[in-house]
């Protein structure tokens, strides 16, 4: 049982890492750009991913 659990958790861990890299490779997401949220954080700065654009897309 412990062996099965270890295999399962290892699978989940590597699966998540694989998911992160695959999403970037496919161009679905660029995770590293989110690092800029902390640097460019003035109230007047343009959001990295504005919430309005997303709402507009959904309503189309």
């Amino acid at each position, binding site marked *: 049982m412990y062996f099965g659990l270890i295999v399962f958790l290892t699978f989940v*861990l590597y699966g*998540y*890492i694989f998911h*992160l*890299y695959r999403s*970037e490779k496919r161009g679905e997401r660029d*995770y*590293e750009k*989110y*690092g*800029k*949220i*902390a*640097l460019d*954080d*003035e*109230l*007047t*700065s*343009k*959001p*990295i*991913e*504005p*919430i*309005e654009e*997303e709402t507009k897309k959904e309503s189309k």
Partner: protein
Amino acid sequence: MHNPNHAIEYDYTVAKWFSYLAILYGIVGMGVGVLIAFQLAFPELNYIFGEYSLFSRLRPVHTNTVAFGFTLSGIFATWYYVGQRVLKVSMAESKFLMTVGKLHFWLYFIGSLLAVASLLVRYTTSKEYAQFEWPFDIVVVLIWVLWGISIFGLIGIRREKTLYISMWYYIATFLGVAMLYLFNNMEVPTYFVAGMGDFFHSVSMYAGTNDALVQWWYGHNAVAFVFTVPIIAMIYYYLPKESGQPVYSYKLSLLSFWGLMFVYLWAGGHHLIYSTVPDWMQTMGSVFSVILILPSWGSALNMLLTMKGEWGQLKENPLIKFMVLASTFYMLSTLEGPIQSIKSVNALAHFTDWIPGHVHDGTLGWVGFMIIAAIMHMAPRFYKREIYSKKLLEMQFWLQTTGIVLYFSSMWIAGITQGMMWRAVDQYGNLAYSFIDTVTVLHPYYTLRGIGGLFYFIGLFMWAYNFYKTMTASKELKEEPTFASPMAA
């Protein structure tokens, strides 16, 4: 149509209030800590304020004031600052959230003062780090609900769609503590059941070993969700911002986050090794503690790598010094903790001074340094003035670092000596030493620990003075600094 009104600015009112409180509770909590450290070396100090200065009464005052006074104030101060900035929304844009924030502060301030006073007059559940009696637990729940409204309310009106990694950690702090606090403080107020006795008194709903298990599930995860998770939230914002370098790997920050969340909750059993809890649970506590090194070092290395190519800043900027050393101390204590939780090491280390040694390289080095750096980073933004004195900040850094080194090295030596003496036997299997033999041997190390604590405590006054002068007398800035905090020599 982002930012419709350019006149609106971030509102730091609540962040400022919590910063003042962090400084106040830091001085009070660690002042008591220094006193009780010296009491262990010089027992006559127990009686300087009569019954109110006995070690047994002041120890919970120390732990609760630093954990739930100093640290929580620091967490709230940084939340009310970082939250607005990474969500790109000002509290001034919502009267409701502003009111909630202020209410949160005042309820916390008054509630925490009363709670500390209640410990001084001996109202206690006697559960470590969960000593507050049931009426205060209710106040804590209200404070926490207000914080939750503030977090999710601000998220609700944000402009930045993606929640920055610090936000994840603040949310985890909120959810984690809510769950832990509620379950560990399930208690029966005896007055209402028996119709007699003290109004404040209660008994735990759990009994025996179950009580111990829930207590240490709570106790260890209080370390997780008060001393680790929100402090990571801070460093993920303040180190990149102060250095002008984006976090080294955002993907690693996500992986470490989920790793930490999954692993931490199972590690509490290591507090109960060689006790009456089932053996498999003790083993599980040990194993998960060792695995915990991975996500902890994931975050810490991510922070150190953020400084890649920019190590010159470590020399120039004392705030970078504080933060880099904070993440180094985080690495040290997250390696030391798992080592202590290995069963054979625990047999030697448990109940010795090595344990408070471990706790303090984490709290003084990691938690304390990070909160100090965060508040000093915010000060020039709060008051549009440069930091009053770089020199003083540098002196504070070195004095406090020396203090921490004195603290943990003396406790390592004391703890291991103590453990070895307790288990030493002669050729016939008789104990080689009596308890008083260990006390005599440990005396110099206890004194050294007190001196180390005193150094750190003096550093707090330097911090408070520097903050106060920054607020009142420092050179005014034309605009808010972008990255490195400006400071006068």
